[in-house]
């Protein structure tokens, strides 16, 4: 096993009243694509800001890229690329000027700059917009430009705080394609996200809850931890069907999806026939009822619900 590129030991951060991050111990190997998920206010943003050296550590310690976070926060900075949650480019500067600005801050040599700018613009699909002002780009393009800016110095570690919020699916997919490329090239990436389908794309996922890291594993293994299975039901009238199925034995949860219902049950094989029977008895017609794969989102919700109890 290689030495972890990020290693935290009991990392803790307090704000006035609350403990935002509580004894986080985590080791991230070089080249990992690590997803940080958790409910709002769980401490994801604080964790990323701590790792970027933007906040003082209350307790514990961490090393990032071989430097001590508390003692050498400035030495870490050339090795990381950090992308804040909110829009943080210079709105008045053009795409090229933004890139050039960050290149100079990070001491990228002018020779490298030309080559990298071209590559990153192609990479982000922004070549034809290189002279457009950042605030005249669409949301998705802004995010891609922000990512390009954090990549200009070829950092070993990328810290991305909810990079795809407010981005349309096409741009989101393009964004993730870029991340995948980087991941395949060996960059270490930590990305926080509220979207579970994105967590599915990570090599490892850490679930934070109330400042603590509750689970840290591959998406497949986390999904496997879900107790129960999913039944997808297409009734003609979802409202009555919902009322009926909610109270059936073995049905843990009923979720509406438009006209469809997703039923979380303790055992699919056992409950599917029971449910079909109950619906027929209740004179509720349905077009289909079948076992469906459990998605990351369901796994996540079920986990958090258990934690809350």
């Amino acid at each position, binding site marked *: 096993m290689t030495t972890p590129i990020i290693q935290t030991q009991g990392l803790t951060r307090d*704000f006035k009243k609350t403990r935002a991050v509580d004894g986080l111990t985590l080791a991230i190997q070089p080249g990992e694509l690590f997803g940080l998920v958790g409910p709002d206010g769980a401490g994801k943003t604080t964790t990323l*800001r701590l790792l*970027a*050296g*933007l*906040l*003082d550590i209350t307790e514990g310690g961490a090393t990032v890229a071989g430097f001590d976070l508390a003692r050498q*926060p*400035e030495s870490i*900075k*050339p090795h*990381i690329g*950090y*992308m*804040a949650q*909110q*829009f*943080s*480019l*210079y*709105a*008045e*500067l053009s795409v090229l*000027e933004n890139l*050039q*600005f*960050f290149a*100079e*801050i*990070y*001491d990228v040599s002018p020779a490298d700059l030309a080559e990298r700018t071209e590559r990153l613009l192609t990479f982000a699909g922004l070549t034809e917009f290189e002279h457009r*002002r950042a605030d005249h780009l669409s949301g998705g393009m802004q995010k891609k430009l922000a990512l390009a800016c954090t990549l200009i110095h070829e950092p070993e570690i990328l*810290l991305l705080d909810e990079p795809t919020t407010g981005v349309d699916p096409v741009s989101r997919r393009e964004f993730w394609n870029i991340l995948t490329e980087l991941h395949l090239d060996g960059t270490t990436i930590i990305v926080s996200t509220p979207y579970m389908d994105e967590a599915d794309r990570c090599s490892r996922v850490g679930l934070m809850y109330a400042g603590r890291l509750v689970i840290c594993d591959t998406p497949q293994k986390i999904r496997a931890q879900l107790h129960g299975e999913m039944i997808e039901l297409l009734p003609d009238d979802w409202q009555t069907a919902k009322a009926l199925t909610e109270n059936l034995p073995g049905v843990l949860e009923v979720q509406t999806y438009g006209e469809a219902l997703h039923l979380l049950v303790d055992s699919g094989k056992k409950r599917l026939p029971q449910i079909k029977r109950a619906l027929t008895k209740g004179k509720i017609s349905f077009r289909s009822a079948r076992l469906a794969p459990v998605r990351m989102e369901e796994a996540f919700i079920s986990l958090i619900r258990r934690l809350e109890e």
Partner: protein
Amino acid sequence: MSWRHIWAIARKEVRHIVRDRSTLILVLFTPTALLLLMAYALTVDIKHVPIAVLDYDRSATSRAFIQQITAGEDLELYAQASSMAEIEAMLMQGEIKAALVIDPNFARDLLGMRGMPMQVIIDGTEPGSGGFAVDHIAWRAEEFANQSLTNQIQAMGFSLESLQPLDLRVRTWYNPGLKSRNDLIPGLISMVLGMPALSVALALAHEREHGTLEQLMATPIGRAELLLGKMIPYIIVGLLNVIMLPAFAMAWFHVPFNGNFPLFFALSAIFLFAMLSMGIIIGVFMRTQAAALALSFLLIFYPGFFLTGIFFPIASMPEAMRMEALGLPGTHYAIITRGIFLPGIGLDILWPYAVMMAVLGLAYTGVAALFFRKKLG
């Protein structure tokens, strides 16, 4: 410290200013506009002061006297009053700023060389015009007395000068005629050059408000690099103003410039550095633009007006205020601007002030860098 980093920040900041047309115009021309307005507001020559006259004497002498004082552009005879009540009403209405009341024995006393019994009433709410009227009347009165008493005095064997025995020879150096514009305008330059300091404070607060500061904090840029980089464009804007403002003062207000312009330019650069350091301090401590603006008034504009000796001589201030004045770059710069504009003095005399401004600038930058941490929260 990397010049490349500073340059990167500075160039970004220049682009920021240049891209927004209205900001560019405001940043470049507000100092000149303010100089124009303030110079006019504060140095309008007093003329045409309306006065009323109540002549109890009604002699040829008193009429001649009235004729004499209202000749010229200085005072304007608004009305010949016939009673004190009338004067009172006119003063109340603000129709007149002063009134001359000539005593019944005016001519008799004057010819008897006992004096010129008369009274000037001024509106105490308008001491500027009122005081001007008093001085003007007193000056004309002396003149009038000399003329009317000439024969008598000569008959007594005295020369005309005997009535004015002390020969006061006043010479005004550097500013013949003691035109207030000639020294107030150079003084005001130090005041309006506070505008770039306001801009830099706002620019820093803006970056905090809009989240780009967080991004910068995650980069390896040094604190001093960041702060210096932010200052440079406003020093440039300020220096453009350093060229525009004297040119404007000379062309529009005919203020003489007797000193060495390169020296003025160099010392102005030091002043701008010191002022911008104050602006940076404000930007470091204040989280929003509005707060930065409010504090700028408190720390830059009010003291700049009252404590730097432009209007109120520092020598007349109590000790504590004098100390405070020494801490303001504007105090030293006001001495420099007036010294270079009017006597045209050089560095041999001005160096202590230049050193003082540089020390203040470094001290303020130090304080700003000390309290500016690359941390959130």
